[in-house]
């Protein structure tokens, strides 16, 4: 550059700063702690005998042969691998900035295998893998519906603490309507309506009256809990035959897919509500990122004023999407009464809405990642039942804590600080 004329060309490239490496030691530390835990559990408190894994088939799918592993040897080998991987993670950290996600995932998988081998060792009853996974998916259903509703609501700028209330309302109304009419379909529709009605309260207070969204959400949860308890004891309990005896949704095997061993019975021999869930996950993902609806929804959750200045009705967009989110969560509520239990009981959601909320954050407000997070929490929940059934040495009180421990570790330990939708939780007040 020698002439001044050239200097007047503005510099259009972004400000690129020199970088230094900030190494986060969080992952290697976590892996090392888990490796030490493995040594303590699997080597010091080692168990002898054999561990048997069974892979039962379903109505259509064939069973796979069972696998028998020597407990001590398997545990020791896996522990050695875990220790080596933890050590290697320090080496990775020294060479590059981050330990990749797949590395942590493989590590986690091997730890779970080692844990299962250990827990079901010493010639205790065989560990049924198919039913472990099937139960995990079943327990995940409300989490996934709840997380999808949470993602939609928060992406449009309204924090949805009320997932719990929406699930409970959906469960209650679905049970009552399905019992009275004898129609599962009307029960599902009633669950949708219940979720939307709860959403209306959230939307009205949060969007129209600018009330703090967290407070409104918590109040709604308490309100729905009180209301369903009241109606249950005063109405449903008086005539349970007529009011609280809904038909259970039948499992519908999908031809072909349901014949795959293990995967078939777990994923493709389920009730209609689970298939609706698969559709909902895909629809929310594609809708959010590839359609006009999703673009506008995200715009009002990120920068409502910008959306307003291009003629998008911020209030309306938020209102209807929060309602839609409520409908999805309500459907998840129907799973309690129509899908698994078969009748309504007091506080039957038992805080699962909050776990769904954790899945939203663990999944970084992405519908697919939130679904995976929900599946993880479902797996942790079901592990306690399965392990109790095979007679593992882990105290049952500890197993009861497991899903919550996993949730806390996941959200606090692995997520840390993430950036959610910029305007989530902030009412849009036109100046």
């Amino acid at each position: 550059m020698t002439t001044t004329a050239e200097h007047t060309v503005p510099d259009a490239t972004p400000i690129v700063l020199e970088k230094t490496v900030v190494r986060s030691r969080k992952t290697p530390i976590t892996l090392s702690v888990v490796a030490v835990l493995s040594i303590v559990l699997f080597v010091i408190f080692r168990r002898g005998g054999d561990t048997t894994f069974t892979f039962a088939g379903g109505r259509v799918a064939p069973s796979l042969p069972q696998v028998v592993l020597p407990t001590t040897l398997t545990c020791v080998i896996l522990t050695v691998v875990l220790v080596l991987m933890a050590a290697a993670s320090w080496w990775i950290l020294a060479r590059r900035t981050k330990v990749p996600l797949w590395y942590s995932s493989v590590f986690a998988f091997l730890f779970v295998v080692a844990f299962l081998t250990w827990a079901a060792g010493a010639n205790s009853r065989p560990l049924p893998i198919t039913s472990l996974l099937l139960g995990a998916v079943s327990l995940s259903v409300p989490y996934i519906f709840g997380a999808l509703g949470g993602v939609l609501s928060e992406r449009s700028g309204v924090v949805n603490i009320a997932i719990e209330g929406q699930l409970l309302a959906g469960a209650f109304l679905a049970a009552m309507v399905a019992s009275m009419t004898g129609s599962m379909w009307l029960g599902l529709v009633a669950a949708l309506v219940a979720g939307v009605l709860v959403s209306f309260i959230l939307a009205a207070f949060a969007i129209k009256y600018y009330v703090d969204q967290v407070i409104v959400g918590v109040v709604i949860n308490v309100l729905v809990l009180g209301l369903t308890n009241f109606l249950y004891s005063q109405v449903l309990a008086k005539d349970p035959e007529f009011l609280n005896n809904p038909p259970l949704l039948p499992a519908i095997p999908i031809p072909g897919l349901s014949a795959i061993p293990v995967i078939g019975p777990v994923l493709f021999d389920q009730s209609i509500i689970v298939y609706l869930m698969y559709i909902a996950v895909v629809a929310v993902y594609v809708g959010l990122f590839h359609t006009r609806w999703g673009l506008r929804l995200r715009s009002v959750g990120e920068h409502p004023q910008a959306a307003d200045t291009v003629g998008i009705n911020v209030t309306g967009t938020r209102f209807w999407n929060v309602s839609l989110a409520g409908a999805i969560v309500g459907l998840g509520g129907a799973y309690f009464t129509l899908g698994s239990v078969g009748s309504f009981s007091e506080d039957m959601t038992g805080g699962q809405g909050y776990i769904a909320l954790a899945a939203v954050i663990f999944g970084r407000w992405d519908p697919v990642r939130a679904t995976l997070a929900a599946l993880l929490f479902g797996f942790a929940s079901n592990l306690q039942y399965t392990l109790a059934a095979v007679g593992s040495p882990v105290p049952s009180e500890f197993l009861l804590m497991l899903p919550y421990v996993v949730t806390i570790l996941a959200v606090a330990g692995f997520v840390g600080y993430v950036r959610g939708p910029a305007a989530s939780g902030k009412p849009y007040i036109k100046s």
Partner: protein
Amino acid sequence: MKLELRGITKRFGSLTANDHISLTVEPGEIHCILGENGAGKSTLMNVLYGLLEADEGEILLDDVEQRFDGPGDAMKAGIGMVHQHFMLIPVFTVAENVMLGHESTGFAGFLNQNQARARVRDISSRFGFDVDPDALIEDLPVGVQQRVEIIKALSRDAKVLVFDEPTAVLTPQETDELMSIMKQLRDAGTAIVFITHKLREVREVADRITVMRLGKVVGEASPSASNAELASLMVGRSVELTVQKQPAKPGEPALTVKGLTVVDPIGQLVVNNVDFEVHAGEVLAIAGVQGNGQTELTEAILGLQPRVKGSIALDGKELTGLNVRKVLDAGVGFIPEDRNEDGLVAEFSIAENLMLDRADGAPFAKGGSLQLRFRNTFATEKVREFDVRAQSIDTPVGTLSGGNQQKVVLARELSRELRLLVAAQPTRGLDVGSIEFVHKRVIEARDSGIPVVVVSTELDEVDALADRIAVMYRGGIVGIVPGGTDRETLGIMMAGEQPETPAPQGDPRGEAA
């Protein structure tokens, strides 16, 4: 398209923000609206754009009366706006931002991204912009973001284009570039409304000038009017545009910064190995485009940055590693760049804000209880000395005008024994009268022998205050040049290049002689 506003009146409670404003903008014309902050320019434009509803008056486009219920209506009618605070969604791509609100879609509402990209490319090539439709907004520099705003307006076939204080965030070169874009648009027949308070820009591009003050149109001026004429019309009295000052009499080096490096949480060297000295009794201005490390540099001096390497020494005493309390006790006065965020507690009264940094000891507190009588005497005196216009010392600071808020910050910082004054963007968002006041106080501090560091992105301010100028670019100091260096040279340095003739670093005492 011809735009006409007739008798627009907008009131907020007892305040009349726009009082019967009438003006006409012809196609192919750049019409400047000149006025101070708070003159009602932005209110007027928000009325025009449908964000606010006027209490009286009408808007006509090509002599047809319009009714706008929201910005959507205004856009449909052909009005586009380049907002002062960009209305862009940081996590969206350029194409997504441009299409938002009028997306072209296929089956079931699926977005037609290719069409949106083509539209961005088409408009950018027509005006010679270099904008990648797939870039995320948050990765783009502000100058390019502004072009995206222009593309956004043009993609909706805007015939009337409003630029609301568009140059506040640009380098001098980007500003020149914007001016030529505006001329290009004008020549293509667009009616342009250009809102600003910068006199230089007005005189460069305006075809007509309307001056507003306190919600009223106070006159029209021709582009050939002098700066002094325009300024006095704008402020309502004659003002001094440059502060009167004697040449500096620099003493010994007081602040010595050596090899200072600041690392941000994602590992970027936001301040990269910076060396400079400030002598007692001189003003070192740090010029540069916003976001090149100036903020982090001042925060590092104050002890607000966690990852700092290198040395900051004041009168031989090392400041790095000290907490903010100790740095303040060492005699550092700090005027933060965002007075609402860092300088003041809006809900607190003037008196409380004036003692914020001295609440933990005598004379403001004794044995854990505040000495209210002393505080009130002190506040009353400072309010008078610094000419803070407020009902009483108990008025919440948040209700004051920007100029008066800044006077409160100045009063607090300058009423201690100072050994160094760091002023970051001390006149941002202030009216001409307050700028005059702040500049005088800064020069007074200098003349009393205090070393002063002024960070500013406004070259006018750098020019008015600096005895020496350090230009920052991408975290480093490009060079240190004497005060009064011409804009051309500074502009080149702000873009990261060395000027042709190596700038004399020089001994400030030598230059002053």
